[in-house]
C-alpha cells in the first residue's frame, strides 16, 4: 500500500507497524489460503464452496459500496449488473469456445473485459437519465430496472438467454479456465499424518475460491485508492451535501455517473466469476432479494467500510449457509438434515428484523469507516439533533420538526 500525503485512512487504520500486527496479518493470510484445503481434505466439501460464495459477496458488497457507501446513492437493483456480467460473459465465452476451441483456457481473459464493459455500459445507459433523481426515487427506479433485467432474461430476449432454463444450453460449454483441469487431475495426495482420511486435493470450488480471493484483493486495492482519490473526495462531498458540493465546482451528474458505472463494473466482474464458479446461470439467481442482501451486507458491516463489507458478507452469506450446510450434512447433533431449508427461511426473517434494529440502534454498522462514523454518529446527542435538524431544514425548507416531540 503506497503512502501518500492524503492517505489519512491508511495511516489511521494501520497505526505503527508492530511485530504483533505483522504476525496477525501473516496468520490471517495463512488462514485464508489454507482453510478451504483443510476442510476439503477432511471431506467437508461444502466449506470451500461457502467460502467462495462469501468472497463473491465481498466483491459485490465492495462494488455496491462505491455506489451506496461512497456516493450515497441507494441502488436496490444492483444484482442486475451481476446478471448482465454473468450473461454477457457466458454468451461470449460459449461463442468463442465454439468458434475457436484451441483458445480454450484463455477465453476466460476475454470474458472478463466483456462482462465488465457490458455491465459498466448498462450502468452508464441507466445512470445518465436516472441519476438526476432524488435518493428515494433512485432506489425505486433501480429496483424496477433490476426486475426488468430479470424479466427480460426470463423471457429469453433476442433468443440469447435461453429463458428460465438458463445458460449454457445443452451442447454449449463455459470454457474451463487455465490450469483447472491439470490441477484437478494431478493434485491428489492422501496425507495419513493428518488423519486417516485426509486427502490434499483440488477441485472447481477451491480453484475458484483462490481466483475470487485474488479478485477480492484487487477490488480492495482499487476501492481504497478510489476512496482516497479526488473522485472519492467528490463522492463524499456529494453524499454530505449536494448543493454545497456543486457550488464547490463538482459536477454532480458526472460524479454520480462515475460511482454508478464503476459499481456496475465490479458487479459485472463478480457476476462473470459467479457464472464460471457455478458453471451455470439462470434468472433465479438474480432476484430482488439478492439485491437486498447485498445492501444488507454493507449496511450491517458499515457503509463505506472495507472490513465491514467482509464481516457483513460472512454474517449474511456465510453464517446461514454454514449452519445450513452442517445441518444438511448431518453434522449438527439433534437436527434432522431435512430441516436445513427451514434454517435458510428463518435467515430472511432474522435479517429483516436485523435491518430495522440496526438502523435504529447502530446506523453506522458494525465496523464503520471512520469518515462515515463521524458523519452518522456525532459524539454528543445534542450535536446530532442540531445537525439533523439543520439537514432537515436544508432539505425541506421547513423548520426543525424536533420542536413538537
Amino acid at each position: 500500500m503506497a503512502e501518500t500525503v492524503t492517505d489519512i485512512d491508511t495511516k489511521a487504520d494501520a497505526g505503527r507497524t508492530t511485530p504483533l500486527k505483522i504476525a496477525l496479518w501473516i496468520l490471517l493470510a495463512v488462514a485464508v489460503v489454507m482453510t478451504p484445503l483443510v476442510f476439503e481434505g477432511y471431506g467437508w466439501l461444502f466449506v470451500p464452496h461457502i467460502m467462495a460464495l462469501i468472497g463473491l459477496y465481498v466483491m459485490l458488497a465492495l462494488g455496491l459500496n462505491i455506489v451506496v457507501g461512497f456516493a450515497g446513492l441507494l441502488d436496490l437493483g444492483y444484482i442486475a449488473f451481476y446478471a448482465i456480467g454473468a450473461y454477457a460473459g457466458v454468451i461470449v465465452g460459449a461463442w468463442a469456445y465454439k468458434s475457436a476451441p484451441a483458445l480454450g483456457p484463455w477465453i476466460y481473459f476475454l470474458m472478463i473485459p466483456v462482462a465488465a464493459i457490458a455491465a459498466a455500459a448498462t450502468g452508464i445507459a441507466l445512470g445518465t437519465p436516472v441519476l438526476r433523481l432524488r435518493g428515494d426515487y433512485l432506489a425505486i427506479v433501480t429496483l424496477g430496472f433490476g426486475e426488468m433485467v430479470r424479466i427480460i432474461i426470463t423471457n429469453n430476449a433476442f433468443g440469447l438467454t435461453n429463458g428460465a432454463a438458463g445458460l449454457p444450453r445443452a451442447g454449449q460449454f463455459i470454457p474451463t479456465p487455465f490450469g483447472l483441469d491439470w490441477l484437478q487431475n494431478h493434485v491428489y495426495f492422501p496425507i495419513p499424518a493428518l488423519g486417516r482420511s485426509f486427502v490434499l486435493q483440488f477441485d472447481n470450488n477451491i480453484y475458484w475460491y483462490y481466483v475470487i480471493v485474488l479478485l477480492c484483493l484487487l477490488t480492495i486495492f482499487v476501492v481504497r485508492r478510489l476512496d482516497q482519490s479526488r473522485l472519492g473526495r467528490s463522492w463524499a462531498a456529494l453524499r454530505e451535501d449536494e448543493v454545497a458540493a456543486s457550488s464547490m465546482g463538482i459536477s454532480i451528474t458526472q460524479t454520480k455517473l462515475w460511482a454508478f458505472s464503476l459499481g456496475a463494473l465490479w458487479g459485472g466482474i463478480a457476476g462473470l466469476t459467479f457464472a464460471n464458479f457455478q458453471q451455470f446461470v439462470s434468472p433465479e439467481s438474480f432476484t430482488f432479494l439478492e439485491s437486498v442482501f447485498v445492501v444488507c451486507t454493507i449496511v450491517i458491516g458499515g457503509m463505506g467500510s472495507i472490513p465491514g463489507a467482509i464481516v457483513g458478507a460472512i454474517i449474511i452469506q456465510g453464517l446461514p449457509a454454514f449452519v445450513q450446510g452442517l445441518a444438511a450434512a448431518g453434522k449438527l447433533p439433534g437436527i434432522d438434515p431435512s430441516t436445513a431449508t427451514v434454517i435458510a427461511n428463518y435467515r430472511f426473517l432474522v435479517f429483516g428484523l436485523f435491518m430495522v434494529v440496526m438502523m435504529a440502534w447502530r446506523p453506522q454498522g458494525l465496523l464503520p469507516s471512520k469518515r462515515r462514523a463521524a458523519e452518522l454518529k456525532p459524539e454528543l446527542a445534542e450535536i446530532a439533533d442540531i445537525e439533523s435538524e439543520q439537514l432537515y431544514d436544508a432539505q425541506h425548507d421547513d423548520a426543525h420538526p424536533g420542536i413538537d416531540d
Partner: protein
Amino acid sequence: MQLANLILAQLVNGITLGSLYALIALGYTIVYGIVLLINFAHSELFMSGAFVGLGVMTVLTSSALASKFPWLAPAQHFFAGSTTGIVCMLLIMFLVSMIVVGIMGMIIERFAYRPLRHAPRLAALISAVGVSLFLQNAVLLWISAQQLPFPNPIGESTAFTIGTVDVSVLKVVIIITVIVLLVALDTFISRSRFGKAMRATSQDREAAGLMGIDINLSITLAFFIGPALGAVAGIFNGMYYGSIVFNMGFLPGIKAFTAAVLGGIGNLRGAMLGGFLLGIVESLASGFISTGYKDVIAFAILILVLIFRPGGLLGESVLEKV
C-alpha cells in the same frame, strides 16, 4: 369488430386492475405526503390484508371449524344462506382486515420509522425494506409457503354485457367499492378536521405543530388509512385471481408505487388517476404486445415518467432548496 371487442375486454380488465392499483397507490402517496418516506412495507401490508381476510372468511364459513366449535354453526348458516348473509360476511371480512392491517401499519410506524424520523432518509428506507422482508417471511414461515386458494363468495356470474364482452359481478363490485372508497377518502381529507390536520402536517410540520395540531396523530392516521385501503385491495386481489401467497405483494406494490409516481407522489387524486392509467395501459399491453413483458412495461413507464416528468402528471415539481 373483433379488435374493438378485444380492446373493450382489456379496457374492462384494465379498469378493474387499475382500481386496485389506485387503492394501493393511495397508501404510498398518503404516507409519502406526510413523512416523505416510501413505505416499502406497504406491499406486505397489502398481502397481510388478503391473509387476514382469508382468515376471517374461513372462520365464518369453514365447516371444519364449525364441527369443532358448535356455537359457530348458526352464524355460519346465516352467512352462507342468503345474499344478505354473504354481504354481511364480506363487510365483516373487509372491516376486520382493514382494522387489523391498519393497526399493523401504526405499529410499524411506531417501531420502525418513528425512531428514524430525524435520521438520513436512506436509514428509514433501509428500515422499511427490513420490515418488508420480515413480514413476508413471517407469513411464509408461520402461515403458508404455498399458494392458498381464495374463495370468491360473489361468484362468477355476469352482471351485464357490453358488445360481446361479459362483465362479471365481481369486477363491478370491485370498481364500485373502490370508487366509493376513493370519494370517501377525498372527502375525509378535504373536509374533515383530521383531514385538514393531515394536510397541514404535510405542508409544514413545524408550523402545524405550533398551531396546536397533534402531528404524531396525523402521521399515525396516515399509517392507518393507507394500509387499511391496501387491505381492501389485498382481499379483492385474492378474489380476483383466486389465490394468495406470501410474496403476492411485491409486484402490485411496485406497480402501485409507479402509479403513485405517475400521478405525482403525495397527491391523492394523482395516485387515483395514476392507478387507473397504469392498469389500463398494462392490460392493453398484455393484450396486444405480450403477457411476458407486461411487468417490464410498468417499470419502463416508471423510468420514463421519472425522467421526463419527475413531478408526475398532477404533481408540482419540487425544487431542492438550501
